[in-house]
Every structure is written in C-alpha cells, then in structure tokens.
C-alpha cells in the first residue's frame, strides 16, 4: 500500500485495525463468567484462554519464521489475567477516555500481545496470520496507531514504564478511577529509565499504577543474574517506595490477587515468577529460545503439548 502525505509527512496508509464485534461479544461473555464465577471456574477459563493464546503464538511465529517465542510464552498468563480478569476495556471502543491503560513495555513479546488482543476482539483473529508480513499492521513491536488496545509504541526497552507513569499521573490529576498496568521484562530492568519512573510513581503516590515484572530470569544472552544482577529485586522495589507482591506468574488466580488495588497509597510491583518458554517442555528455561524459531517438527510437538 502506498503512503500518503499527512501534515507534510508521509505515513503508511494503514489505519487502526477494525474491531471484531463477534469476538468482542465472546470476550465479554467469557469475562463475565470469569469475574462472576467460582475461583475454580475462573481458573479453568483463564487457563483455557492462555492455552489458545500460546497456540496462536506458536502458529504466528511458525508462519512468520521469526519472533520472541520464549518471552511470549512466559508473559502469556500475565496478559490473559490482565485482559480477562482485571482490566476495564471495551475492544469495540479502544479509545474510550475512561478505559484502563495497559502497556506492554517488553514490546518484543508483541506476538503474545497481538494474540491476546485478537482473542478479546480488538481486531479479527484472521489478522494474526499477517504477523510480520510486508505492510502488516502487526509489526515486530506494537504500534498504537495501527493496533487497537496498544497505548504506546514500545520495543526499545525501558520506555513503557515512564509512559504508564504519565498515564497514572493524568488519572490522579483528574481524580479518575481508571487504572494503569505496565508489564516489564526482568532483563529490561537493567535500563535506568525504569528506575527514574519508579521514583516518580512512588513520589506521587500513584496507587492506581501496577507494574508487573515477568521474572523469567533469562535475557537474550544469558541468565539475568549472570549478566547484571537484579537480586534482591523485591528489596529494590521496596527501597524505591513500592508495595511488592511476589507470586507464581503462571497461577492466574494468584496473579489476580496480586494485582488487586492497594490501600497503602503506594504503587504496586508484582514480581511474577515465570518460566521462559512456559508450556513447551523443550523450550522451558532455555536461553536459546529467546528468539529461536522452531522447526516444523518442533512446532508440531509444541502444539501437541499446548493442546493438553
């Protein structure tokens, strides 16, 4: 598609992807079941959606021949818990002023985000097949001008957290009730900009802000602790003035509880202990699966494991 001139600058002809009304209806029904049902029923639903999202991720990366599969699989349960269990968003009206804001700061896990957003009906699931294809709206890192549900363009690490802090500050200024959730990679915390934002959020008492750390303990090249040590990570957040909650990042109900609102007046950091490559045995906790692409046989094996 050719570009067009807008305000003197050439931009891509793509507009925001349209919503999938049927998908959004299904999402609303699922959300109702999860939020009104028994804990066991909620956990079952969340696990089911997570399984579907993980399968989409494997299929997307298989088709595209590229992607960050390890982190996608570690962050999936966090994404699904947020969108299905927690956030107040309307996939058919993604720009509603009073919506909750969700920021995936570890933007390289775009496949997991796209898959989750498509399952919610922000856009049609068929669009997932275009992941990384020329001129697709689904770039390797999310673009808010093309993908509904994306609040800011991430990809360069250390960017989402300050932006989420600005969102929460605006809500505080307006006395608005909506909340902001930002999901950070653990390796990403080596970027200093995160700690600038951590100070700002604590200073302003942004209790409507929740930062979830996908603590899978691996970064691109090695273990975080063998690269530049993050531990004691909880103490770091506490020292910066945050309330810290430590949970199993694959336990949806534990995540939900950890992301509940705080009454301490402090922002909340959820350290979600996860496994990189979660759900596919031969990828789990292995550094090479940061962005390795599975072979056809491996895809088949992965999808079989994720069907269970």
């Amino acid at each position, binding site marked *: 598609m050719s570009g067009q001139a807008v305000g003197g600058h050439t931009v891509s002809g793509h507009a925001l992807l349209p919503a999938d009304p049927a998908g959004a209806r299904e999402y609303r029904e699922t959300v109702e079941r999860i939020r009104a049902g028994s804990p066991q029923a909620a956990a079952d639903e969340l696990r089911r959606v997570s399984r579907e999202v993980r399968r989409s991720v494997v299929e997307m990366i298989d088709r595209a021949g590229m992607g960050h599969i390890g982190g996608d699989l570690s962050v999936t349960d966090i994404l699904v818990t947020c969108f299905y269990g927690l956030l107040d968003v309307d996939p058919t009206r993604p720009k509603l002023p009073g919506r909750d804001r969700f920021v995936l700061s570890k933007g390289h896990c775009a496949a997991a985000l796209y898959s989750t957003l498509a399952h919610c009906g922000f856009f049609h699931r068929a669009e997932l097949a275009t992941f990384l294809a020329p001129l697709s709206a689904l770039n390797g890192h999310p673009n808010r001008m093309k993908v509904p549900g994306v609040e800011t363009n991430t990809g360069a690490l250390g960017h989402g957290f300050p932006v989420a802090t600005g969102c929460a500050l605006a809500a505080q*200024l307006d006395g608005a009730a909506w909340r902001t959730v930002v999901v950070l990679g653990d390796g990403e915390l080596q970027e200093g900009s995160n700690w600038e934002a951590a100070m*700002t959020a604590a200073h302003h008492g942004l209790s409507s802000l929740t930062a979830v750390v996908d603590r899978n303990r691996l970064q691109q090249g090695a273990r975080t602790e063998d690269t530049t040590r993050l531990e004691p990570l909880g103490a770091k957040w506490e020292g910066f003035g945050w309330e810290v909650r430590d949970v199993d990042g694959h336990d949806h109900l534990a995540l939900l509880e950890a992301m509940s609102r705080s009454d301490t007046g402090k922002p909340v950091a959820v350290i979600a202990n996860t496994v990189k490559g979660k759900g596919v045995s031969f990828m789990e906790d292995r550094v090479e699966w940061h962005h390795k692409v599975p072979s056809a046989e491996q895809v088949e094996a992965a999808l079989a494991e994720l069907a269970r």
Partner: protein
Amino acid sequence: MTEFDCRKDFAAELVALARQDERIVAVCNDSVGSSNLGGFREEFPRRLVNVGIAEQDLVGVAAGLANAGKIPFVCAAAPFLTGRALEQIKADVAYSEAHVVLCGQSPGMAYGELGPTHHSIEDLSWVRAVAGLDVIVPADPVQTRAAVRWAAASGRPSYLRVPRFKVPAVTPADAPFAPRRAVLLRSGDDVTLIAIGSLTSRALEAAERLGAAGVSARVLNLPFLDPLDEEAVVAAARETGGIVTAEEATISGGLGAAVASIVVTRHPCPMRILGVPRVFAPTGDTRFLLDHFGLSADGIVAAARELLGHG
C-alpha cells in the same frame, strides 16, 4: 535596540493558554527556574509535574499524560532534553504520535561559558532526523508566543526551540506563522540570507550593511524548520545570485543542510552555510562564541560577498 529574553514570552503565553484550556500541563526536570515556570507553578501548582533530574522519564511521562488527554509542554534545557531523551522523543512521542510539545530551553550556545556539555548545537540535526516531528525555531518574542499557541492547537508532536540569548523583535505585524511559510523580512535580488532563531536579527543587520555597499540582499526567516517553506527557498535560488544560511547550531544537519538539499535537487545555486563547524566550542560567553564562529553580521556579510565574487 530593545532586546528580549523570549523565555518570558514563552512562559507568559503558556500561562495564558493554561487559563483557557485545563488540558495544558507543564512537565519539567527540576527546571522551574531556568524555564521561567514560577508563575505557572503559582497559578497551577497541580498542573506542573516536576519529575526531577530524569530526562528519559520526563519525556515518557509526558507521552503518558498526552495518552490520557493532557497537552504536556515539556520544559527542559535543550541539550539534556534532546541528547538524553532522544529515543523517548523518537519512540514515545513522534512514532507514537503523542501530542507533546517538547520545549528546548536555552538552545544553541546560550549557556556560553558553561561549555559544550551545556551547549545544544546538535538538537536541530537530531530532531530533524525524527519522522513526524514539527521543528519550530522562533526568532523573537512574537514568534515565540505564536509558536506556543500553534503547538498547543496542532494536535501533533513538535519541538519548540525557546531562545534564551536576548534578541530584538524582527517579525512584522502581518507576518505568517504556519508550517511551510517563510517570513520575508527584506526584499532583495542579489543574494538571499536565510536565518533562524538568534541569527535572524544578525542577518538583517548584514543585509543593511550589504545594502549600503550596493548589494541588494533578501532576508528570509524560517520559523518552521520542519516542514519548511520549500517554495520560498526555490524562489530565492531562482531569483537571486545565491543563498547564505545562518544558524546557531552545528552545520551537520540543520538549516543549511535542509536548504541545501532543496537547492541541489530543485534549483542549484551557489550557497554558503554558516553555523558551528564540527568542533566543541572554547570557553566564552554566547556573544563571543557567536562571533568566534562567524555567526555575526560581519560573518554573514563576508560570506555573501565571497559567494558573489566580491570577496
């Protein structure tokens, strides 16, 4: 001639706008004093967000505020705003199309003796390389006030270079202030002087001296460096004997480079590009440094005469 510190006009206009539009917020990095935001803080204490000395956070927070419907004016010394937070400017503001007004305070060599760490001669090259960002370089109080109003209403990301070095008023009452609109400050046929910001009044002075010596110099000012008035540049190339550009910035990628790329592709003509060469400035106050690099009426006259073969 009366000279003005445009930061006062910037701050006064921002306060006036904030009275009319509650979406306007100021975001700063411990720069209330240097950005002249004391009055804003007094009147709108909650709408002044001071993130402390943390420029990456500064720009990211502003993008978040814009996401939630605010119109943030980020006020920080230009070298730190553009140098430290360039990736935030690119990703969080420009690429995300966040309506944030990035106000680079005390640009160029305004901090004189404080040296190259505090000089911002690279800012124009850096921000010009970022897609989707309007680049505004006011030359005097009138343009500074117009820039604040324009940027608040544009709905687009912009970089506004707020002068600190005192300048005389140069803008005629009926001058345009819009993207792609040059301001014609003086008509002439022999040579064209194109200047921005603090060099504008110096170009006018040079044109007067050239006029006294029988050389008719046109003077153009480009308050919008991006998107700039391409047709005015092409007309200058076609109608006069050549173009001299002058800016308080590095010659790598600023006004001179922008004009040259139009000239060579559309109507080649002789050019001279005045700015800071690729060196770090020695110790000296702003006036000394401008003169040192030939960014003076004398320097512009000499470049024009040399271009015309009168050297």
